[in-house]
């Protein structure tokens, strides 16, 4: 039955896109086909507004084993091992239901990682909410999203080792929940998603299929259903997906055992657009066709229609290709792990995706139409003429002393201690974590060969708003700086581009400039982009979110026992600034507290000088010559010093007067310079010695003197005051 023409609009297809479909198919699509096309041609699956721009990102590198295009990118870390990683957004579901939205976000990125054969060993989260002081909703979203991330990660036994949280008015209507996962895999176990071998069997693993996440497509519900649906169509079609980490834990162990036994020919997770996306991607990558029989898909609810089965986003499912002779062995492993395993179709050489409902054919399209033919759009970027973002409410009224400023910064939601959040995450399961949150600028995970991985995730929307190109580049540099602080060299990065509506000229400009900035920074540092994700249309009636590219970087250090720390440790150590340091107040946290809109140019970056500084610190940490290393980021030099004191529980006294006052103390130029401590000899030649570790206070002559205990108390209280106490224990 051809789908009634007007429906394509409700499904989000434009008139011209639908006309193109008519041309490509030479007929009207049926309901099932229309549902599948509308999803595959959606922004989320097709990247139609970003794909062309993404080509700008450098993806080649000596260590790269898998670049963008696979479920997760993978880089070689030596010793026959690779690390696979990716960051992905779950922004909208989290805004609708923060606990389940964030939980299933973690579940989804975990599947992307074990879909390439890697054992997930770490999770990081990058969160953005509205102002907690003024917005009860933002406090609720924070509370529940954090609980959801913890619930999934803790239950499945993958440590959440790091992350970042920022608050800004622009996220009030569109919170951001990005999750990154990192997995370890022996080279020979790496597997791709491309379907292979016509005649091979398509096997669905994991959870039952229900009406989860069908949302938009439900306009295709056949009339009869709408009528007899006793509790109403709405109830019949829950679109909130519930995460089941227990089922995913079994699915994960099952998939890895199937791969260890070499029983799979291809593996693909089911994410957005469920079976539709998974099967099209597998077929397209293999240049083959697939037949899927929806009648064979095990259902959670009776009476599901073929289109519902094809687009369902029920969680904890994987699709794999198995050669007929191995089906028995596969079933045996699945039974042992109590994982449902069902033959749902077969690989063909037709290049078509055929959907059957028993004997009836309910869909039959060339795979290319689903995957390759979606029109790609060029953006028309225009720099905005006036400021896009209103100034935030001022917290500081002016006339504050340096002491007041430092205290206000440490107490502010964006700089306060994240302990109330990360204590809700198991950061140590797996016995690899040697640097937990707050111990160093990057999380450090030990490797079997005595080396270690370092991971950092970063992005500062306020600075990107000031200058998308420079701000996005800073995110890359700051990740690299974080890695340098623990002695790690970058191997690759992943990114999530969270932006507003790209069809608006100024958002198009932010996106284009940010990608250019990312690309140049990657080139300057020689770090390839191996994967990522794009989340567009994060826009409220009163405007877009701050442009928020989030960068996740992975690096390696040779000797885990030399992994760096952030806190001052040794009384009498010298303190030095390493790297080019010319901070400015534009886009800084002080500027925000003073009620300044995110505007004005950012300090220029000398790539070579920055690269050298990172190398200097990295080498010094590796040599064991330093007691501590910390990069100077939000809050500038004064906050960096305070953080080193708090982390080490010891004071510091600067011997130089800091000229330039507020700008010098609190101005920002992230990703460039470091505060390090160590013996005088170790620091001579490395950087500019500015003071000594010791005592109980942080002393900056002519500027401020505060007890470290007071600094800690203020920083610890910052977020706690906004943590609404939970009512249920999940």
């Amino acid at each position: 039955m051809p789908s009634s023409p007007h429906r394509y609009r409700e499904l989000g297809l434009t008139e011209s896109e639908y006309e193109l479909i008519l041309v490509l198919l030479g007929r009207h699509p049926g309901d099932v086909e229309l549902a599948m096309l509308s999803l595959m041609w959606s922004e989320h699956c097709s990247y139609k507004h970003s794909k062309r721009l993404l080509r700008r990102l450098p993806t080649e590198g000596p260590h790269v084993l898998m670049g963008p295009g696979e479920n997760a990118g993978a880089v070689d870390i030596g010793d026959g091992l690779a690390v696979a990683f990716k960051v992905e957004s779950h922004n909208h579901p989290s805004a609708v239901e923060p606990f389940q939205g964030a939980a299933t976000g973690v579940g989804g990125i975990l599947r992307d990682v074990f879909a390439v054969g890697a054992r997930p060993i770490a999770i990081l989260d990058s969160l953005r909410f509205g102002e907690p002081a003024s917005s009860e909703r933002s406090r609720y979203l924070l509370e529940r999203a954090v609980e959801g991330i913890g619930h999934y990660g803790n239950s499945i036994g993958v440590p959440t080792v790091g992350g970042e949280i920022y608050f800004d008015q622009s996220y009030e209507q569109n919170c951001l929940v990005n999750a990154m996962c990192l997995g370890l895999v022996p080279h020979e176990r790496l597997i791709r998603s491309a379907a292979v071998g016509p005649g091979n069997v398509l096997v669905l693993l994991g959870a039952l299929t229900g009406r989860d996440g069908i949302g938009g497509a439900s306009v295709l519900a056949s009339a009869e259903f709408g009528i007899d649906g006793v509790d109403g169509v709405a109830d019949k079609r829950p679109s909130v997906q519930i995460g089941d980490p227990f089922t995913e834990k079994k699915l994960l162990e099952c998939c890895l055992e199937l791969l260890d036994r070499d029983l799979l020919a291809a593996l693909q997770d089911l994410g957005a657009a469920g079976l539709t996306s998974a099967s099209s991607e597998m077929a397209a990558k293999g240049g083959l066709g697939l037949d899927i029989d929806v009648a064979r898909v095990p259902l959670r609810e009776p009476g599901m229609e073929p289109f519902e089965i094809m687009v369902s986003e029920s969680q904890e499912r994987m699709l794999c290709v198995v050669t007929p002779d191995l089906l028995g062995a596969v079933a045996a492993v699945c039974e042992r792990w109590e994982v449902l395993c069902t033959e749902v179709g077969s690989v063909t050489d037709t290049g078509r995706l055929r959907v059957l409902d028993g004997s009836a054919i309910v869909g039959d399209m060339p795979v290319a139409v689903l995957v390759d033919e979606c029109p790609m759009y060029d953006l028309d970027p225009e720099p905005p003429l006036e400021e896009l973002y209103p100034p935030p409410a001022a917290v500081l009224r002016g006339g504050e002393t340096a002491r007041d400023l430092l205290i206000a910064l440490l107490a502010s939601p964006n700089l306060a201690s994240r302990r109330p959040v990360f204590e809700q995450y198991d950061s140590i399961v797996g016995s690899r974590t040697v640097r937990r949150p707050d111990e160093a600028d990057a999380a450090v995970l030990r490797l079997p060969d005595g080396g270690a991985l370092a991971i950092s995730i970063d992005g500062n929307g306020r600075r990107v708003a000031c200058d998308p190109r420079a701000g996005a580049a800073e995110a890359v540099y700051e990740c690299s700086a974080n890695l340098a602080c623990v002695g790690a060299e970058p191997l690759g990065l992943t990114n999530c581009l969270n932006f507003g509506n790209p069809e608006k000229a100024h958002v198009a400009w932010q996106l284009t400039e940010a990608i250019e900035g990312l690309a140049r920074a990657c080139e300057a540092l020689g770090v390839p982009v191996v994967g990522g994700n794009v989340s567009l249309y994060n826009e409220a009636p009163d405007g877009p979110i701050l442009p928020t590219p989030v960068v996740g970087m992975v690096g390696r250090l040779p000797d885990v026992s030399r992994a760096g720390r952030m806190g001052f440790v040794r009384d009498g150590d010298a303190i030095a600034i390493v790297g080019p340091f010319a901070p400015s107040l534009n886009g800084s946290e002080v500027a925000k507290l003073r009620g300044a809109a995110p505007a004005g140019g950012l300090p220029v970056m000398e790539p070579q000088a920055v690269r050298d500084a990172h190398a200097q610190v990295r080498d010094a940490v590796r040599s064991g010559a330093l007691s501590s290393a910390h990069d100077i980021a939000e809050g500038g030099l004064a906050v960096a010093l305070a953080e080193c004191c708090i982390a080490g529980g010891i004071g510091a006294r600067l011997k130089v007067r800091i000229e330039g006052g507020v700008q010098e103390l609190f101005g920002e130029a992230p990703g460039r310079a470091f505060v390090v401590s160590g013996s005088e000899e170790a620091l001579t030649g490395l950087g500019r010695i500015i003071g000594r570790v010791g005592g109980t206070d942080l002393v900056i002559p002519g500027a401020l003197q505060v007890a470290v205990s007071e600094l800690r108390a203020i920083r610890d209280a910052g977020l706690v005051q906004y943590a609404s106490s939970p009512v249920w224990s999940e």
Partner: protein
Amino acid sequence: MTFGVVRFPGSCDDVDAVLAAERVGEAVMLWHGERDLQGVDAVIIPGGFSYGDYLRPGAIARFSPVMEAVSEFAGDGGLVLGICNGFQVLCEAGLLPGALLANVSLRFVCRQVELEVMSEYSPFTRACPLGEPLSIPVKHMSGRYYRPEQGLADTQILLRYLPGHNPNGSDHDIAGVSNAAGNVFGLMPHPEHAVDPLMGSSDGLWIFESIRAHLADRVVA
């Protein structure tokens, strides 16, 4: 000597327990579906979320075939160590007194805590340095120990959270208890995550070392 580490669907710290046990002896995994304990000298029920912690932590796991064997093993005096979820399983199975309820904070908490060792004679703590607190991490959602009116003598309390370190509201700051016979021990803190200074502490090793020493003596005797 060989430790057997039970693996339930949903166990998370099983591999960690094996790695820790291997620092003092051998270790093998025991599958939840099998009754055969493979002649191990001591059994560890590891942390995690067996059966998703659905219904109540440990409620479903206690009925698995391997637990029948573990009960017999314990009945015959074999050493059984339950860590976190393992502690919950042993309480649900009636091998240990009391119950573990939701943290008072109603939040999951992952934190390094300081513990006081209450007995120098238990097979699970005998190697611990006298009078020294242990620094070991906790990470759980339901670790609030409920002390039953009867059935728990003070001598069965082997570990207490030091003042200011009780992360969950446990009665009497109880962090770990043994059965009356002293051969079954459950604790909420994770000694297997404190076996190497690189990971923040190696105090947890004393628990494993105690078990090794106890079994070594027994062999000699």
